[in-house]
């Protein structure tokens, strides 16, 4: 079939916008005008005042005139020819939406985008937000987390108040780095389930477990661990973890379409979360600088790390004999996400 000049006419249905009655018209282009020919009349629309709808699959395309009225065109090929003649080209989005290879590329790109967002954008965004989080929010999150932990995981401390005060004083003697932002407060608890451990809440509360305090005779080693925990707080690690998990939860909720499951509770996240290797390294460095600032050796933290690992390995061995081994294993997993302890100790204390 050859394309003769008469093929430059395209059939369309014209609606005037005032009544629902459609009229069959033939469309053609003359210089910069769109012409609508019908049996009774001829309409002339300046092309620049005509909005041409983009292609959407095989749906009819609409030519809408700013002065009122529109044409519905079902003949895609004919309209393309007409538009080619008029020098109107397709947009990039138009091409994207109608090519199978782009659809496949889009699928791959979506996966890449998700991965990149999860790996890079999320931690960055969480850090930016966490560092600007107002104190009230940190306080609320700290106290609600402690409440939950006290209810489910922690027991009162067995240390007498004199011993508690001794450790508090030792920590108070540790001068904070000049750029310190928060007030610190140590509280004492015990937890056979969690073993030797200490953890920092977002508001600057550091929970020191008896099991850790009993691990060493040297209080400055405990102070070294507390300095490490202070690094976690100053760098807002807990807050960042909460924000990251919430963002993931939000995405999932959006995808599944259920908004009621929004904002998983912070206590659960803090309890389950393991800091990333980068976060541990950051806290180690912070502790190292604090120790040096106070004229203390970072090797104190290194030796404490060794003791902690030994204690947890022993606990895990014991746990292995118990029936509910899996459960205990999870609870005593404190060191699993820490970079290999020896590596960390070596970086803190190269001389050893």
């Amino acid at each position, binding site marked *: 079939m050859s394309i003769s000049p008469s093929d430059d006419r395209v059939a369309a249905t014209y*609606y005037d916008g005032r009544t629902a009655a459609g009229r069959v018209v033939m469309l053609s282009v003359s210089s910069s005008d769109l012409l609508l020919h019908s049996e009774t009349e001829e309409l002339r629309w300046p092309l620049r005042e005509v909005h041409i709808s983009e292609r959407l*699959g095989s749906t009819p395309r609409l030519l809408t005139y700013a002065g009122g009225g529109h044409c519905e065109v079902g003949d895609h090929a004919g309209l393309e020819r007409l538009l080619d003649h008029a020098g109107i080209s397709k947009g990039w989005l138009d091409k994207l939406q109608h090519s199978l290879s782009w659809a496949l590329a*889009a699928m791959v790109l*979506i996966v890449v985008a998700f991965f990149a967002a999860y790996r890079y954008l999320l931690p960055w965004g969480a850090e930016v937000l966490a560092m600007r989080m107002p104190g009230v929010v940190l306080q609320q999150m700290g106290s609600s987390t402690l409440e939950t932990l006290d209810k489910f995981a922690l027991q009162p401390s067995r240390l007498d108040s004199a011993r508690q005060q001794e450790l508090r004083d030792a920590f108070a003697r540790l001068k904070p780095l000049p750029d310190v932002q928060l007030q610190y407060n140590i509280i004492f608890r015990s937890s056979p389930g969690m073993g030797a451990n200490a953890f920092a809440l977002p508001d600057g509360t550091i929970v020191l477990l008896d099991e850790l305090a009993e691990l060493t005779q040297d209080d400055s080693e405990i102070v070294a661990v507390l300095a490490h925990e202070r690094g976690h707080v100053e760098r807002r690690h807990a807050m960042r973890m909460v924000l990251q998990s919430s963002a993931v939860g939000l995405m999932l909720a959006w995808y599944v379409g259920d908004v009621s499951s929004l*904002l998983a509770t912070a206590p659960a996240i803090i309890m389950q979360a393991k800091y990333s290797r980068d976060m541990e390294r950051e806290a180690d460095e912070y502790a190292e600088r604090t120790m040096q600032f106070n004229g203390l050796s970072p090797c104190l933290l290194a030796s404490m790390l060794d003791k902690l690992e030994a204690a947890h390995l022993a606990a895990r061995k014991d746990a292995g004999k118990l029936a509910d081994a899996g459960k205990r294993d999870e609870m005593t997993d404190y060191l699993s996400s820490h970079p290999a302890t020896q590596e960390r100790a070596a970086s803190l204390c190269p001389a050893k």
Partner: protein
Amino acid sequence: MQEQFAQNKQHFEFTGKGWEYFRIWIVNLLLTILTLGIYSAWAKVRRLQYFYRNTRLAGASFDYHGTPIAILKGRFIAFGLLLLYNVTLKFNPILGLAIGLLLALVMPWLLMRSLRFKLYNSSYRGLRFGFAGQTRGAYRAFLLYPLIAALTAYLLAPLAHQRIKQYQFDNSRFGNAAFKFNGTVKGFYLIYLSAFAVLVGAVLLAFALARMASPQDMAGSIVIGVLIVGVALLVVSGLFSAYMQNLVWGNTVLGEHRFFSQVSARRLLWVRVSNFAGIMLTLGLFTPFAAIRMLRLQLESMGVESSGDMSGFIADQQQQATAAGEETAEMFDVDISF
């Protein structure tokens, strides 16, 4: 007589195709992700335009005219409100509840705006739809009646549902012709009661099985009981959607044109279950196909019976003259579905 009726019976046609929509959908999804959600407003316009333009009645298609910027504004507002509510609820429950209450208070107004936006931006044969519902009616339909339903232990829920549909349809128009909703409260009660009866039957059956089972088989009979109730819920949800669509559209009139709807509950249930399975098995890639299948079923079982001509409508003069409807409708859109 019968013949003449049949001649004027026009079915909706839906010409959307899964593969075609898949390409639009996947590009929409990619651009939405790359723009951190901003593009979703443009994506919505494209999606609705694809659906509307593929919906045909008496040889002409529908069209959607919403502007992405208006939709984006509405999304920002909705997202901001939701975030405010969730964050305050987390850190100050009392303030959070107060904000939640405030949200509930503005919800009817937002719903009214959303209806106005949706209808004003829909057209058929070059004529716009419109929504003339007022704030008073919105509060009655979307707040007062649901509240009454809740206070009566949902005994009056079917009544509330009927009132909401009445408010929606009786305030809608096409060109200068008004929609009229004739669905009776009785009709709503019949659907709710039969759904309730099937569920109660399923629960009783599950209990009866559990009682007959010997103590050793307790675990097994509990599993079977849960399965029975689960299947009953699924079946009831399919029946409910189908009968509700048939009731609502079967009792809607536009001028001298009467709508009809005969969607089969069995087919609706099948499409729903197979769609769910497809989406799960393809990690979501089946979503666009699922949307097309459901729309085809729902639309093609509907139509219009008319004694007059479908092209007999004329534009609403008032709407044309003031154009105020356009301005207020264009301000923002709120995505709230019913």
